[in-house]
């Protein structure tokens, strides 16, 4: 047979099966272009001009790895769906006398044409929209870096082509194997085979329920950012498994109970609906569970990325309550201090800004365990045991003189007395004992300037009589240290002046200040702001790319499910009418089932998000986002938008369904 024949047959097949191949083609194109755009951002030199572009590009590189991992199974899944739909057709070829290798050749050409054209179009779309994305990215980063021009590096082409070539090879092999292993009769019968029975329904359903309850409980009761971060991953895994179990076994379990209750079951409306749902859930549980999980992922990703992006200024303020903080050796000589003073004066004038509200204190710091209303010095035993970080306090010890001068007080302390500055509640703590030393707590003071800002750890300042007492106390609280206490001094102040001047002031301070003998570290909100914007802007973009990917997957699965449901329902529709159900009744009951089936994943996803919201809020606190109102708003807004988009997609795909059923 001529080679042209197979190509021609493949092309005819593609256009004849366009109802499934066109959506597949569109989805592949979107995925290719997203992947292309991400790789483009990683390798392009054009954002190299942007400050902290490495942070950004590293983040995107990490995102690309995850995307690669996600795209692969997804493409295999939709491919297997496509091939299963066409079983009958392949069976017919075999009956008509095409050998398996001939069918294989047709499949090869079909896949080649579909994949290649999606790849080509995807790259074109990627190039076109890449430019737009690039502009938006610069805008989101607040960084109109001069000389940044859009370019397309060869790596973007190479990586995109390589990934989709591998996918092409794997899917083709899968399809060939599929046709090779089946005999024509099986292929012809294909979907007519009896249903699989779901085994172990009750234990599986119970296990799923327990798992979900555990995950929800963990998410709802988490009180601390770090615990949230560490348990999030395992909770996600638990929810994924539980979702699959509950969709597959839980639905059967629930419907079985309904079916056992004759009073409920043998009612005209319920009768058809319950057995219909029984059948549908058996066929579609896995697909629906995947829709549910993908939707949840979209919601979580998008809402947290938006919250981080919108809350970036809040986060910066909390991380850096003072515009600039200079860390110095406490034992710096007058000469060294003078040097710094002169530098600050000079930079102030050069950049036309003013230093306001300066304050400084000398400190030593350590970590303490807080258990049952008492502080303990952690030892190797407590470190190795599974205590979570929320049991710890970050402790900073300062001398009384610094406290008085900075807060304008006239407090006095005895040798064995302490003041505690903290915003945490430490009710009932009358004394502070560590080792064999016992201190009386004179007062617990909340809301001082020392405890401004926030942290994912609980913090407190201990105020002791003088620097000697500070060192003494520190030696007791840090028994593992060699007794060498090297206190540091922090000089913190705000800067007044135009934003650009403050930035250049900060940069100059870092370049000229850090080499000074006395200075060990300089932290400025102005330079950190740029890095923060780069990070959260980048994160927002990654989030949007991921959401696009997940959404494409979700939409395609919904669409394919609608198509397969449509073919099944067509027959059922006719039988019910013949047996004496009128057109309206049939339409209503099937409508109802379809609605339940397709909105169940959305309901599941919203429920998951509701349960996870506390955990998300806490997790964002690890990024110093303490603005709960903003987080909640982002969560709610994302849910509303996503719900509307979901309904829109449903409406759109439902049209195809009705076209199939009514024909």
């Amino acid at each position: 047979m001529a080679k042209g024949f197979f190509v021609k047959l493949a092309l005819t097949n593609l256009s004849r099966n366009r109802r499934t191949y066109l959506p597949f083609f569109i989805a592949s194109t979107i995925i290719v272009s997203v992947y292309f755009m991400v790789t483009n951002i990683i390798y392009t030199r054009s954002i190299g001009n942007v400050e902290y572009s490495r942070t950004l590009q590293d983040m995107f590189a990490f995102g690309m790895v995850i995307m690669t991992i996600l795209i692969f199974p997804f493409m295999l899944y939709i491919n297997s769906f496509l091939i299963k739909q066409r079983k009958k057709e392949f069976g017919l070829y075999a009956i008509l006398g095409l050998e398996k290798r001939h069918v294989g050749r047709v499949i090869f050409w079909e896949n080649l044409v579909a994949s290649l054209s999606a790849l080509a179009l995807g790259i074109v779309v990627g190039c076109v929209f890449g430019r737009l994305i690039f502009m938006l990215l610069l805008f989101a980063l607040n960084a109109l870096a001069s000389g940044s021009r859009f370019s397309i590096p060869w790596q973007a082409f190479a990586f995109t082509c390589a990934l989709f070539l591998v996918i092409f090879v794997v899917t083709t092999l899968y399809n060939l194997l599929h046709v090779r292993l089946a005999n024509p009769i099986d292929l012809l019968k294909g979907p007519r085979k009896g249903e699989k029975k779901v085994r172990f329904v009750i234990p599986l359903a119970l296990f799923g329920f327990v798992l979900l309850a555990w995950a929800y409980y963990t998410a709802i009761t988490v009180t601390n950012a770090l615990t949230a971060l560490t348990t999030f991953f395992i909770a996600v895994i638990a929810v994924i498994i539980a979702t699959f179990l509950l969709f597959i076994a839980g639905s059967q379990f629930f419907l079985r109970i309904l079916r056992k209750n004759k009073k409920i079951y043998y009612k005209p409306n319920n009768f058809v609906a319950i057995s219909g749902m029984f059948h549908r859930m058996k066929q579609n549980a896995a697909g629906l569970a995947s829709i549910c999980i993908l939707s949840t992922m979209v919601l979580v990703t998008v809402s947290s990325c938006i919250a981080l992006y919108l809350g970036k200024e809040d986060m910066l303020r909390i991380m850096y309550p003072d515009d600039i903080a200079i860390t110095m050796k406490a034992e710096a000589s007058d000469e060294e201090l003078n040097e710094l003073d002169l530098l600050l004066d000079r930079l102030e004038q050069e950049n036309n800004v003013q230093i306001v509200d300066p304050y400084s204190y000398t400190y030593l710091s350590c970590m303490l365990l807080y258990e049952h209303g008492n502080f303990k010095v952690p030892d190797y035993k407590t470190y190795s045991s599974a205590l979570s970080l929320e049991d710890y306090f970050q402790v900073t010890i300062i001398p009384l003189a610094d406290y008085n001068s900075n807060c304008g007080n006239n407090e006095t302390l005895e040798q064995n007395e302490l003041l505690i500055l903290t915003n945490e509640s430490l009710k009932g703590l009358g004394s502070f004992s560590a080792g064999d030393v016992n201190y009386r707590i004179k007062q617990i003071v909340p809301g001082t300037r020392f405890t401004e800002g926030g942290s994912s750890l609980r913090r407190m300042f201990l105020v002791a009589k003088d620097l000697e007492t500070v060192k003494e106390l520190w030696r007791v609280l840090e028994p593992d240290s060699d007794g060498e206490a090297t206190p540091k001094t922090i000089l913190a102040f705000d800067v007044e002046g135009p934003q650009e001047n403050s930035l250049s002031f900060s940069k100059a301070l870092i370049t000229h200040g850090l080499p000074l003998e006395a200075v060990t570290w300089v932290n400025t909100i102005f330079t950190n702001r740029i890095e923060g914007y780069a990070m959260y802007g980048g994160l927002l973009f990654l989030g949007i790319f991921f959401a696009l990917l997940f959404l494409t997957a979700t939409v395609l699965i919904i669409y394919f499910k609608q198509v397969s449901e449509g073919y099944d329902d067509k027959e059922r529709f006719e039988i019910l009418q013949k047996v004496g159900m009128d057109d309206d009744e049939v339409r209503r009951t099937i409508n109802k089932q379809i609605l339940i089936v397709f909105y169940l994943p959305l309901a599941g996803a919203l429920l998951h998000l509701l349960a996870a919201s506390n955990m998300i809020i806490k997790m964002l606190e690890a990024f110093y986002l303490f603005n709960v109102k903003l987080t909640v708003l982002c969560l709610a807004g994302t849910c509303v938008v996503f719900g509307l988009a979901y309904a829109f997609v449903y409406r759109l795909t439902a049209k195809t369904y009705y076209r199939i059923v009514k024909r």
Partner: protein
Amino acid sequence: MELLQVKNLKKVYNTRLGGKQFTALNGVNFEVSRGEFVAIMGASGAGKTTLLNLIASLDKPTAGEIILEGKSFKTIRDKELSAFRRKNLGFVFQDFNLLDTFTIRDNILLPLVLSNTKVAEMEKRLKPIAESLGLTALLDKFPYEVSGGEKQRTAVARAVITEPKLILADEPTGSLDSKSSANLLRIFEDLNRQGQTILMVTHSSMAASHASRVIFIKDGELFSQLYRGRDSSKEFFDKIVSNLSVLSDGGVDVG
């Protein structure tokens, strides 16, 4: 009064592309009395299935009238048609038309459930029917788990459970092997002996020979009728076959 009256029935189809018209039935008249077992025979395309669909109220005639127990189909509103069908007619189809989402039990109960029957009443009716049709052991199976003959017996059970005035069977033996066919026809005869009126469209002379009367249709018109009288089914079979050879005008095999 006759149970079913078919008066001057006419059905014209427009071909798919709209241009030509095709007359499937052209002025068919006949009557069916209570307790009769009538078979309708004819070649492919003679209009048998069209006729049955019209009597089943699944389709509407172009002209003419169908009257069941004095009630003309014309007077029934569209919305009541399904309920009317459910109450008065029972169906047995060639391809069974069982729902694969229902167990055998639920398939049989379907019409009763649709008419909102009480659970106790449903069970009371199901038991003797399932027993007499040999379905008791299969009630909890699904259609794809049982044989063709068992599926068709399920369809019969579904048809009779509503105690319909008339059972309509469309090629009921069409997808069955000879043993199952014979079994099914015996069931029809039994039902008929208990007073059930049956109207069966069939291709098979063997199936028709179990009826009490056979109506022959050709090209959309009533061609002739044969009454069984006191004939055995073998004798009746021979008569049907010879009548068919007249009908086919020589040459065309109508089985």
